[in-house]
């Protein structure tokens, strides 16, 4: 564990790492794999992810500016859809507009995302985000 003063420099790196877990069938959309360690840009430019026209494709790799808006859940949903989802032609299985599709619960560090600010929650290094689809069977 480094102290705050010494981490300041390393924290300025352009990427942060997160654990993203999928459950309840969501994993079938992401390489049939429950747990993913992902590196996403620390900052982003909000207009770059605006759902202006569906025809404008995302760049091959996500831009990682050294400043801008801190990456939040809104950005993570966009990033997962553009860079991790298996079937890019069917984003509706995962998202709806800028948010998650109905029937999926998001947990941030084992807390209902509603308590953390939903789309506005700013991601921190090491955060764990769970996307779980409602389980109906019994």
């Amino acid at each position, binding site marked *: 564990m480094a102290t705050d003063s010494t981490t300041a420099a390393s924290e300025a790196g352009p990427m942060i790492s997160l654990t993203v877990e999928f459950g309840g069938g969501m994993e079938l959309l992401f390489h049939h794999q*429950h747990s993913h360690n992902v590196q996403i840009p620390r900052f982003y430019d909000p207009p770059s992810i605006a759902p202006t026209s569906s025809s404008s494709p995302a760049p091959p790799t996500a831009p990682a500016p050294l400043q801008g808006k801190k990456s939040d859940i809104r950005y993570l949903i966009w990033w997962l859809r553009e860079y991790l989802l298996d079937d890019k032609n069917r984003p509706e299985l995962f998202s709806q507009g800028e948010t998650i599709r109905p029937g999926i619960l998001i*947990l941030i560090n084992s807390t209902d995302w509603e*308590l953390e600010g939903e789309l506005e929650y700013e991601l921190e290094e090491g955060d764990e985000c769970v996307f779980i689809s409602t*389980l*109906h*069977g*019994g």
Partner: protein
Amino acid sequence: MTSTIPRPRAEVLADLEDTRARLQCLEKELASLPPALDPSPSPQPPAAAAVPQQQHPLSLREYKRYGRQMILPSLGLEGQLKLKRSHILVIGAGGLGCPVLLYLAAAGVGEITVLDHDSVELSNLHRQVLHSEERVGINKAESAKLGLEKLNSDVKINAHALPFTPSLFHSATTPSSILEPSFSLILDCTDNPATRHFLNAYAVAYGIPLVSGGAVRTEGTVGVFGLPLPSPPSTSSGSAPVDSESSTPPTHGPCYACIFPPSAPSPTPPSTELSPAERLLQEDLRAEKLALQGTGACSDEGVLGILCGQVGVQMGAEAMRVLLGVAKPTLHLLSPMSPSPLRTIKVRAQKPSCPACGTFPSLGDPSTLSTPSSRWATFLCHPEGRWEGWEDPLCEIPGVGSSSLKREGERRVRVGELAASLGSGARILDVRSKAEFGICHLDGSINVPFSSLLRDPSSALDLVSPSHSSSVPSTDSSPIYLVCRRGNDSLLAARALSRHLSTQPQAPQVELVDVMGGLTAWSQDVDATFPLY
């Protein structure tokens, strides 16, 4: 250790005489001794009638039966009596209902009402452990009652062979315990979203806590919903202003719908301005989306038996906590096959705008408040008993639904026709999952799972091209038969492939044939030795 040779009679008589004499000696010796100080040898129990008969709240058998758990400080006699005085409602006696019922009946919950409309099947028994082979075919609620009465005859079990549906509340034969509920707790052991939301609304309307569980594949959830919360110590003089409603803390924990909102009504049907072809395309894309999302049913998606036990027992534990008065609103995620099998979630508070448990101005008349009980009363008064968002889970056709109507230019055949063309180089494309294909498949068939086929139709077609299946004497012109488990996904796959081919005019055209009824029909009509699962 008697000798094998009988002793002479005279010898036995002499022995007896000696023994009698010895007895007399011993009695004389005892009589000569001073009276004993210890009263224990006294033939009379000391003053039994003098002790007043104590009243015990449990039978002697119950003390013995529940002793091991009553010793626990967290339970005690007090806790055991709370369980005994409880009456719980369990909806569903399937994968979750079985462990819930087994453990709560064994623990001594006084009265249990259980509803299930379904019958026991062999394919249930890997997880529905309260039923048995000899009860296959009988109603699950009845079977559960038989099993529970063998386990604990001190518990009262009421079994009803009924589905928990809106029509239950508009039927003259519905038991009054359901119509005028006074349950301590409801357990949601059902298997579909419509019933879960309807049961939640019922629990909310009557202010009864709900423990709900779900289990599919290898993952499950357990939640405690609609739990009355202790009111915070009042600081004001009690005359709170009426308009401070938003600031008053909720009296209940979140309900099921606060955490898992009901999905929005199905998208509006395609507009009539679309051409027929466009309308069919929209219909197909919608059906594909539904098929990819899955039905969520254990029969389609599979379910691990152990998981049902784990989820059911966790539901039982939360039920105990509710009945003992120590529960908190909570949500657990269980995944017994993963490295972190149990995760507990910090849940949100009750949502004032929740369609099930919220209180807000009525849509029709904003001057009146719409409350859970007013909405329930409206439902009870409705002549047809309509409940918004209700879809009959028994009638719902998963996947294809209405789009299964045959279309022009489409070739769909029965399994008999596939059997007849097997010798003539027919190519068979099986679109089930890899695991299902691994269980059993038709000789010579090639597996491309439905989701992969939709993602990449041209690779799927390459796989069934002759160079990949050299052992089969087929040519590019022989038709491709599409099969799946029941015939839903294969139809959608055939349509997706033909849509793909229509965009590739230079690609070799192939005839696509959907096999109706899938491998289930194959087993029933062609080859009875082909396993059904």
